[in-house]
């Protein structure tokens, strides 16, 4: 018997096409409790995928299940999920508190007053809850929408670009809120074009490129799987020219550039081999290595590789 937990969401060979345009093509993955980041360039199919995961859109092929049940046309399941779409429109005539309260009522919340105030407190917006949402800034609207998404304390949160319009302080607050919710056992899927945000909160990432799942797993494990791809490393030493002429002869190195500041930038075709060869080479050449840092270890660069690849 496997010790692997049952997935909360299962996306099984899902495709979606609009006429002759294929938006999502044969995508399969499982989502477990914790925070999962959904990443991809604009038009990659992220939003279509999220909409299929929430039942808002149907699949052309394959299936999406949540807690083992189909999500499409399954209202009983919707009380267990909170969905915040990418669209920022709100009922502008409605006050923030009214909106959160209405969403709570629609989702069957029993203690409506307490749940409404708790959700508004979570997004740190009690001072504006009595104002019509038409008067809100973009960031405030997003936060009040998040409060409405959280009001029924859902087990699954699906958030499409939730931080649009948020200022840096709100982003930090939001990240810590997400982490707290995930620690409470919730399953959270967050899509964002700000890659650093996802990198900071998501334990698992799903990379969608051209409607296909390009990679999935932990961020670093994805990077490791890509080690055979060109990889830039910045090296600071006490003798950059000597190091450059030595390092270029290594089989794991494709090219070397010397920066004006004295650092050398190595383009490696096998970073694991480079990790072993570089210290030996430095020792043999009596060169002191002061700093060795990968330049490609950000999500942005992994993402870039996949998109270009």
């Amino acid at each position, binding site marked *: 018997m496997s010790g692997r937990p049952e997935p909360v969401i299962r996306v099984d060979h899902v495709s979606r096409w609009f006429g002759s345009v294929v938006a999502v093509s044969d995508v399969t993955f499982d989502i477990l409790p914790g925070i999962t980041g959904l990443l991809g360039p604009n038009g990659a199919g992220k939003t279509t995928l999220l*909409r299929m995961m*929430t*039942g*808002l*859109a*149907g699949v052309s092929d394959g299936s999406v299940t949540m807690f083992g049940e189909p999500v499409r*046309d399954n*209202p*009983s*399941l*919707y*009380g267990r*999920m909170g*969905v915040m*779409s990418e*669209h920022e*429109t*709100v*009922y502008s*005539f*409605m006050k923030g508190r009214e909106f959160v309260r*209405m*969403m709570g*009522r*629609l*989702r*069957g919340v029993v203690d409506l007053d307490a749940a409404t105030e708790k959700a508004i407190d979570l997004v740190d917006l009690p001072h504006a809850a009595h104002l019509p949402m038409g008067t809100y800034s973009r960031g405030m609207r997003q936060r009040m929408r998040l409060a*409405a998404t959280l009001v029924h304390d859902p087990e699954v949160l699906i958030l499409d670009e939730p931080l649009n319009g948020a200022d840096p302080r709100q982003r930090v607050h939001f990240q810590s809120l997400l982490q707290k919710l995930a620690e409470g056992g919730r399953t959270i899927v967050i899509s964002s074009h700000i890659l650093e945000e996802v990198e900071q909160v998501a334990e698992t990432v799903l990379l969608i490129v051209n409607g296909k799942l390009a990679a999935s797993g932990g961020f670093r494990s994805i990077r490791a799987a890509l080690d055979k791809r060109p990889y830039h490393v910045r090296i600071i030493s006490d003798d950059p020219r000597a190091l450059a002429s030595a390092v270029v002869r290594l089989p794991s190195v494709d090219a070397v550039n010397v920066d004006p500041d004295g650092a050398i930038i190595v383009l490696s075709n096998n970073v694991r081999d480079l990790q072993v060869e570089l210290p030996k080479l430095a020792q043999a050449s009596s060169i002191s290595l002061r700093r060795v840092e990968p330049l490609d270890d950000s999500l942005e660069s992994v993402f870039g590789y996949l998109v270009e690849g």
Partner: protein
Amino acid sequence: MSPVFLLTLRQLSGKWRVVIMTTLAALPVFFTAMSVRAIDAPSVSEFEIIVLSTMLAGSIAPLIIVAIASVAFANEIEERTLANLTLSPIPRWQIVLPKLAASVVVAGPFIVGSAVLTSFLAFNHDALAIFAVATGILVGLLMYASVFVWLGLVTKQAIGVGLLYIVLWEGFFSGFVSGIRFFSIRHYSIALMHGLDPRRFAESQPVGLPTTIAVSVAVVVLFLVLSTRRLRNMDVP
């Protein structure tokens, strides 16, 4: 009370809509007030055809309700707020029915009020005539509303398509092509007036009351079912 109903009431009660509804609803009343004072006042049957059938049941009522019912969902789709409702753990009909009810509650007072005042002026305060006209218009309103609510779910041009339907189908074809009137809401609205007060439209030979009631219920139920199915199957933006 359903939050969907309350939400829709607020969405549909804008100032401009109230102005338009008031203006349209006042037209038959104004026309009737002028007619009954005129020396060459129309006969009862002429009045029924011109004011009750063509103007009230065939134009004013559908024009008001198309402006209300067709946007009950269309606004949510356009503003991309419909997901707030469809991602609720409630059956889809519990979204459709409050939307329909709110449309009728918003438009009803204007249309039925217009029917009551018009028949009050035209039929010398005859209670049965007023009741028959008001009921016929109200049932017609319900049928129109159910059609236009569905229309708002299936096309982005619900108002335009609705206007074409009112002008071409209810206004033109059903008046000139005899077989088509059996597929016309206006016809059943008139038939109900006749069924409740046989003096009304006595020369028009509309269908009987039981058939009228059965068809009216069938139309409302059919379009409620179609709207519910559409809401279940559509891609919600």
